[in-house]
């Protein structure tokens, strides 16, 4: 037994456990090494922040850092291309029915190739659940579409009804997609209630209309706060402390970029608004094209600016106490580059570059994300294994709506 165990990879918690377990008489040299390493680690650990133990559970008294690493994504464009094209073919041939199976395969591919701390995610939805949700969604959408096309008056009522209905759809969708995400054989969970959802998704944005949108960044913050705070990994909830200031910086910056792009665009082309109308009569297509291009540029830069800032801020300020901390460093310019080249590639390839673009984006975001795993990670308890709240869960599976969290 020539065991030269490398204790350097061990965390403080693991070292202590190993020390307690080891036989002093049989392996004195190992016991000594362990003690030295514990002493070494304990020194900075104690002097630095002793992790404000927010309701530390009985099993884990201190949340020591186990490991820290980037999210790794293992997907390959060539491999996903063949999955995608077969999905597309079967979806077309079955007139859309296979799209439920296609969605499961696509999500399984992306979840299963995303790895944090040596473990991969899994997507657990059953295609039949999604098919059921899609059939209902198609019926609802078709009746809405036809009714509003046939009668503008009924359409206006439908829009109102849909607005009131949206929070419910979001909550049900969020519940579904969290429940269908697993990591280390523990499912995620969304605990958000309908009342809160109604406030953040309908009331606050509506009220912000009357403040000339000045309140909107704060309302956006409340939405993100709601979505993160109500999420949980097993029985461990996410907590977040978002700053309103960051949302104002991101929103004002995004608006500023749009204004700047149009000002620069107009001055480069060298005409004011009046001459623009005159040119409209002669070279209409050129002007239309330039305006369209300016719109695209403004959209690409300002949306990337907002996404990057807010994503970084959310990750920085959120954690699962005792289980994990997050960090995101998405750069604005790299994101602009990623999105622009993706769109160009997709247009030039007539859509065949879609799988490549999706894999590339997943790599990009994984690379920009860092997760610190804390010692509580090994003892997160699974919830909802049984049939608790069967009706709500059943209803949740009816709608398959995704809300992008950026």
């Amino acid at each position, binding site marked *: 037994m020539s*065991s030269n*165990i490398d204790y350097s990879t061990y965390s403080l918690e*693991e070292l202590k*456990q*190993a020390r*307690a*377990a080891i036989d002093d008489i049989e392996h004195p040299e190992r016991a000594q090494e362990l003690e030295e390493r514990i002493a070494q680690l304990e020194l900075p650990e104690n002097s630095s922040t002793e992790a404000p133990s927010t309701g530390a559970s009985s099993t884990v008294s201190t949340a020591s850092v186990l490991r820290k690493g980037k999210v790794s994504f*293992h997907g390959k464009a060539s491999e996903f291309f*063949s*999955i995608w*094209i*077969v999905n*597309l*073919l079967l*979806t*077309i*041939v079955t007139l*859309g029915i296979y*799209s439920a199976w296609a969605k499961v*395969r696509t*999500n*399984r*591919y992306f979840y*299963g*190739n995303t790895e944090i701390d040596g*473990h*991969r995610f*899994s997507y657990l939805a059953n295609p039949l659940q999604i098919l059921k949700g*899609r059939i209902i969604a198609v019926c609802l*959408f078709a009746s809405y*579409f*036809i009714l509003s096309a*046939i*009668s503008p*008056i*009924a359409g206006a009522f439908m829009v109102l009804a849909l607005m009131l209905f949206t929070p419910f759809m979001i909550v049900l969708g969020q519940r579904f997609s969290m429940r269908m995400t697993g990591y*280390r*054989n*523990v499912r995620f969970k969304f605990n958000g209630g309908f009342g809160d959802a109604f406030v953040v998704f309908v009331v606050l944005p509506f009220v912000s209309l009357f403040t000339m949108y000045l309140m909107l960044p704060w309302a956006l913050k409340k939405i993100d706060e709601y979505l993160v705070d109500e999420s949980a990994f*097993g029985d461990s909830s996410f907590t977040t402390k978002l700053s309103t200031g960051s949302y104002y910086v991101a929103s004002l910056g995004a608006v500023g970029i749009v204004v700047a792009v149009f000002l620069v665009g107009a001055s480069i082309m060298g005409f004011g608004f009046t001459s623009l109308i005159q040119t*409209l009569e002669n070279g*209409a*297509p050129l002007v239309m094209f330039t305006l369209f291009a300016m719109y695209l540029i403004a*959209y*690409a830069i300002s*949306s990337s600016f907002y996404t990057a800032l807010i994503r970084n801020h959310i990750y920085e300020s959120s954690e699962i106490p005792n289980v994990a901390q997050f960090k995101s460093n998405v750069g604005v310019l790299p994101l602009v580059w990623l*999105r*622009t080249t*993706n769109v160009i590639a*997709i*247009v030039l390839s007539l*859509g*065949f570059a*879609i799988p490549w673009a*999706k894999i590339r984006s997943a790599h990009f975001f994984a690379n920009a994300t860092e997760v610190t795993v804390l010692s509580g990670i*090994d003892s*997160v*308890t*699974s919830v909802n*294994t049984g049939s608790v709240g069967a009706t709500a869960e059943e209803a949740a599976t009816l709608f398959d709506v995704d809300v992008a969290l950026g």
Partner: protein
Amino acid sequence: MIPGQLYQSKDSAVTSVIANIEKNTLIIRLLNGDKRVKDEQCVTTSRLEIDASDIADSGESAGVGRSESTEPLRFQQFEVNAKSKLGNLPREITLPNDRLLVCSPSPLLDQWLDGGAGSRISQMETKKPWLIASVLLVPLLLYVIFVQGMPWAAVKFANQIPYSIKSVASQHTLSALDYSMLEPSTLPDLQREQLMMGFDTVVKQVSGLGIESNIRVHFRYSDLIGPNAFALPDGTIVFTDDLVTLVDGDQALLDAILLHEIGHVAQNHSMQLIAESLFATLAISYFFGDLSGAIESFMGIGSSVVQNQYSQKHEWQADNFAISQLKLMQRDPADFADVMRKLSNDSEQQGSENSWFQSHPSTKARIENAESASYND
């Protein structure tokens, strides 16, 4: 020997394992050669107790001692449940009692789980001929569906819609338009009556369609839409005052426009367009769904291009309806060309080149179409 990880059902605990297939049985050995695993087990004995009781429950050899834990776990095919193979992903195998085994992909394991040939879908995804066929078939089928299938289904759909619905829809639309962008006509009563009488004769001559009695012509004044005319699905046709003024009240020219609008009504175009837009939106979102951000907005452009193509096609059909009716009435299709020319001279935007983004075909082409019909006489 396949390295893997065994996840417990109750919490996030993990054990490194080595899996193997021996005599058609899945054998999972806990890695206790690794000191680290053993340390972990010493601390978390409670977890192993759960394990042992689980196994006793499922009626297996309850031989997993918690002191040594060398006894491997054994499973038959019917006891485990695996998701189909996908790319080069690790295989996820659900064991009894909701434990999860995740193993690196290996041909041995694949064969045990999927049988000799492997799952059919994963075969399609990996075999070259299938892939080449998919790459060729997808664009072809998309073309067939969008160009042939959807318009065909839209016609069938539109024909199912009863007149009562079309009538309600038209009334609602007209009152919404009256409220928002239309005002009562300012043309002299006499002029309107004369035009109406002229239109009546035209409508009577359009025979055999069964819609003649439904055609009702209205005049409206509008700042917003300028010289224009449009048809509602129940046969209501609206002319703007500006259009009448533009052609100096020339009955022959207005008749040509009327016939174009009757063409829309006769061929049920508004209902078809609703169906076509609906089908196109659904198809695009389900065929290319699950896209995000910039790509999705590109899909939005794609969907409006598709819809504009459909509505361009309807304009051509209505034009050709008007032209053939004019011929039947022994009148000159050049009337239609004349009125189009007047409209295009008036309009600021002459048919620009990017016709993909326009709901109406280029005016020049429409004039040429009507004129060539005229010369063919």
